[in-house]
């Protein structure tokens, strides 16, 4: 943990230096500072701690059936974890659904371990059931690090999910008329000093999709993609998306397919 604190201190120092930097250089300096910090943590991303506990959860028998998740099929066959995250979301014949990682994990917990998915769906993101999901997501995503994102909707349900995701992306609602596209539908814009990835494009989609789950330095939390989307909808002033609901999977499919061909950088690290 020492390395983490030193890293955070270094990050704060960089931020403080940036705050006094000349106005015109502000954006670039902030960006470089964050990138330098990410670089410095290359082999010390606190997400590693979550990967380790996720691996333990994956391999330890649990639930009424006292089974581990090691026979879970994430799309590449039972038990294959390496590279699986880079090819999600995808269609699964056994559930007849398009699933992202977290909804697929719930399926495996139910079928292999005999667990009731409901408490996992309903728990808040900081409660123990979600901590399990996030640790598992960290572990599994780490097994796709540096793999090419390969999500090419072929099955009719995958294509339908992509179209639903695209519509969701542009769907305006709520008191502020916001859609995902309000912030992520233009190239090169930012909110405050935060750069906004342009999700309809390949590079932007990869920036948005390919680095989650991620460790967030500012909050000291590990966030899964489902948590990331949940907070987007909060800021959009929408009602709360149900955990692993189709709207979240559709958006994930839209992002992942747009990002296809780019590189997975999971688990990521964010400021």
């Amino acid at each position, binding site marked *: 943990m020492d390395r983490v604190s030193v890293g955070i201190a270094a990050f704060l120092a960089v931020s403080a230096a940036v705050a006094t930097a000349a*106005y015109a250089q502000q954006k670039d300096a902030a960006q470089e500072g964050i990138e330098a910090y990410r670089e410095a943590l290359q082999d010390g991303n606190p997400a590693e701690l979550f990967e380790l506990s996720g691996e333990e959860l994956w391999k330890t028998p649990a639930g009424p059936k006292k089974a581990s998740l090691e026979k879970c099929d994430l799309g590449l066959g039972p038990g294959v974890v390496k590279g699986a995250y880079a090819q999600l979301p995808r269609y699964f014949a056994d559930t007849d659904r398009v699933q992202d990682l977290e909804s697929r994990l719930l399926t495996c917990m139910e079928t292999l371990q005999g667990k009731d998915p409901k408490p996992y769906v309903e728990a808040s993101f900081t409660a123990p059931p979600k901590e399990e999901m996030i640790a598992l997501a960290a572990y599994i995503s780490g097994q796709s690090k540096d793999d090419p994102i390969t999500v090419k909707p072929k099955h009719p349900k995958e294509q*339908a999910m992509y179209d*639903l995701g695209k*519509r969701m992306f542009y769907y305006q609602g709520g*008191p502020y008329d916001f859609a995902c596209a309000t912030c992520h539908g233009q190239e090169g814009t930012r*909110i405050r000093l935060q750069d906004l990835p342009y999700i309809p494009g390949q590079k932007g989609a990869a920036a948005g999709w390919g680095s989650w789950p991620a460790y967030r330095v500012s909050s000291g939390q590990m966030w899964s993609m489902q948590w990331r989307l949940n907070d987007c909808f*909060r800021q959009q002033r929408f009602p709360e998306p149900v955990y692993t609901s189709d709207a979240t999977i559709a958006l994930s499919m839209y992002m992942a397919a747009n990002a296809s061909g780019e590189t997975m950088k999971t688990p990521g690290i964010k400021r």
Partner: protein
Amino acid sequence: MKHAMKHAAFLAVLLLAGPALSETKVAPSWGPGADDAAFTRMLAASFKDKGIAKVDRLTQDETQAFCSDPEAAASPAAAERRRQIEAANMATVKWPSDGKWLGDWKEGEKIAQSGRGNTWTDKPGEPNGGNCYNCHQLSPTEISYGTIGPSLLQYGALRGRDEETMKAAWAKIYNAKSANACSNMPRAGHMGILGETQIKHLMALLFDPNSPVNSKSGPAQ
């Protein structure tokens, strides 16, 4: 409920805007075979009430529905429809009740800084922020600003303070869709995000000669 009623009133305004409305209806052009029912089912099953953010926020008014297909909304064929939507939004604008445009720019700066309000973690009854710096450059000393909207540096200094200019700025803040049907800017007055006094403070931030927005010492763009 208040929100729903506002939508109902707004729809009525749209319907009165002219018989051409129903004839020029732009289909939700997500390609032939777009499955609207599937999308509606997905929305209904995917969201739940949380705090002040209820699922009725997913019910679109005509402006939101029109702008949710950006390609169709921006097409030349939809030009007339855009004008109708702008006119209907303009008709919602309530002008200052006492005829005074400007409040206190210092209060305006606080409102512009605040991004609070209307999320499921916000409490009912607390005043909302304006979210202005999220998207606009305003005071030259505030370097943390967004770029989704244009820079507003020197707003009043460049435009002057005649009645017409004030009116345009007020309408833009009160209901941004009155000038541009699918503007990214929230309709602060129309949607009840900001009250009349808050809008006056923001107007002062834009127009008061002593406001930092109009200061001469700002860094060059």
